[in-house]
């Protein structure tokens, strides 16, 4: 039996063409629309990779309940699959770094995207493609304060997640710098993805503290929840709304004037650039000289809303 397994494993190795890079992309929940845009970018990059005879396998978690362990397991899985390169998010370094080291020990090249840029050096990864969460937060906080907000509520949907905490810290610091006040709202993580529950939680905060005149969300579904809460209270226009990331409804609101801005980190680039540069590095030895490569922040507001729409329709923004 054991012999059978080893021979089939050996066969499997020879079957997958050894000349062009096989890449695994490890990203977050398949039920979160954000990752669909990352996936779109990676799939576009895969056209070139596949043309060279390589392949791309996209591995996603089911949810965020057990995020660090789930991501580490997916990295182990990619290692077991014998890929040549792994592009991964790194939101929980404690849990993921041992798996990344094991992959590197097996001769696999690793690159980072979206989160964990601070651990670029420690992880030994080739590069990082994403935004600096804190810098993006500062930009968002400043923008909201400069557009007239005095007390910003920053909502964290999964408390304790490093990149989310950094975003809200940035928003708070940016707001303070521009002379406004900020409060960070941490809701139970089981409300993650729950629009109705989150909307009620935001509504309760707005009800409880009348001085709050702006809400910043860290995900577009949460902004939908906030928009509903603001509308429910009849405070549309009175309470400003900003969010990280883009979605059709976010852009509709910006167009309609009920949302002030959205902070884009260009997830399409994160998927496209991480996967294509990783494959090119393995196939041709090329390397991007700039590191980390920042794909954001880019603020979408009324001034540039129309150009952004086309991208959303194509699934690339």
């Amino acid at each position, binding site marked *: 039996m054991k012999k059978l397994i080893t021979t089939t494993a050996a066969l499997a190795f020879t079957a997958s063409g050894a000349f062009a890079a096989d890449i695994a992309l490890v990203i977050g929940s398949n039920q979160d629309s954000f990752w669909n845009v990352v996936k779109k970018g990676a799939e576009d990059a895969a056209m070139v990779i596949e043309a060279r005879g390589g392949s791309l396998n996209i591995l996603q978690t089911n949810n965020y309940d057990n995020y660090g362990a789930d991501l580490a*397991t997916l990295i182990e899985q990619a290692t077991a699959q014998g890929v040549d390169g792994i592009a991964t998010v790194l939101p929980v370094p404690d849990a993921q770094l041992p798996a990344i080291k094991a992959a590197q020990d097996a001769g696999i090249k690793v690159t980072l995207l979206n989160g964990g840029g601070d651990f670029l050096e420690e992880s030994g990864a080739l590069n990082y493609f994403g935004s600096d969460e804190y810098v993006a937060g500062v930009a968002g906080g400043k923008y909201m304060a400069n557009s007239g907000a005095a007390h910003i509520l920053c909502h964290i949907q999964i408390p304790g997640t490093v990149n989310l905490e950094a975003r809200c810290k940035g928003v708070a610091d940016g707001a303070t710098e521009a002379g406004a006040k900020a409060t960070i709202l941490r809701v139970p993580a089981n409300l993650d993805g729950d629009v109705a529950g989150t909307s009620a939680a935001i509504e309760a905060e707005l009800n409880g503290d009348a001085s709050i005149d702006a809400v910043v969300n860290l995900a577009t579904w949460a902004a939908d929840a906030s928009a509903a809460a603001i509308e429910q209270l009849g405070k549309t226009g009175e309470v400003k709304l900003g969010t990280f990331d883009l979605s059709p409804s976010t852009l509709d609101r910006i167009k309609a004037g009920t949302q002030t801005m959205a902070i884009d980190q260009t997830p399409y680039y994160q998927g496209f650039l991480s996967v294509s540069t990783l494959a090119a590095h393995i196939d041709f030895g090329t390397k991007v000289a700039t590191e980390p490569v920042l794909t954001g922040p880019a603020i979408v507001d009324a001034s540039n809303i129309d150009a952004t729409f086309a991208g959303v329709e194509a699934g690339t923004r």
Partner: protein
Amino acid sequence: MGAFVGMVIVFVIFAMFGFSRNFLSIAGFANWMNFASTVGIIAIPVAFLMIAGELDISTGAVLPASAMMLGISVNHYDLPMWLGIIMTFSMAASVGLVNGLLVTRTQVPSFIVTLATLFAVGGLTLALSDFLINNTNVSLQSPDWAKALFGTRYFGFRSAVYWWIGLIVVFWFFLHKSPWGNWVFAVGGDPESARNAGIPVNKLKIWLFILCSVCTALAGMCQVIQFNSAQSATFFNMIFFTIIASVVGGVLLNGGFGSVAGVVFGTMTLGIVQQGINYTDIDRNLSLLIIGVMLLIAVLMNGTFQKLATSWSSSKKED
């Protein structure tokens, strides 16, 4: 038997589609066994409760609570590891005790009781960790002996896999060889006659709830020591995983029937389906659909096998 055949069929299907990505390698095998071990450690005592006619869904909160408790007590308060482990087990045991007492002393169904403790423990975990360490995640650097016992790898398999295997043996003796096992079946099959026969029904149920929470704590501690970090989010999926593993393994939801081997095969089936999809070229957006359909097929097959088995044994009796 049905559970074993179901597992083999699922395995062969994924082996065919996942062949080119090393699904059949040792590392591929270890990969889904590692995933299955956490579920498996919890699924067997959950199945015991189901056989005894009860249900425990508070596992989804006890797992992160245990991981966080060990992390906070050892990492933040610098308590020795052994003390942290004892404290964590005690915390879990008291949750089990509360579950057991509430279920046996009141007429509230165990689904509702453990639903309440699920949310209560989940909320307490989040609130306490934010209060104590200003963070809802904790990292943990474990001493070598704890790593070796709970959180390392041997031949590619996590320590949890070996704990699981050990528990399978112990639990198999408990359920199928010891008198207590007969009690569990009797309590689930017909509680009234069980009580009349002198079985301490309430005591047994309380101990089963404690066992379930303590095993969940073991799984949680293995996880935090293995991954050096814990998060306080309630692990709702774990509830579904353990129940799916039990039901696919042939445990009846209304009690009185089930086996340790069945639950083990059920857990392995879940592991193959859950992890196996990533070895194939199937669109990942379809993964949940495929898991649902496969589990349904497995359960239906189980039912058929069970009917065949009972009709075979009853016809044999008539001979």
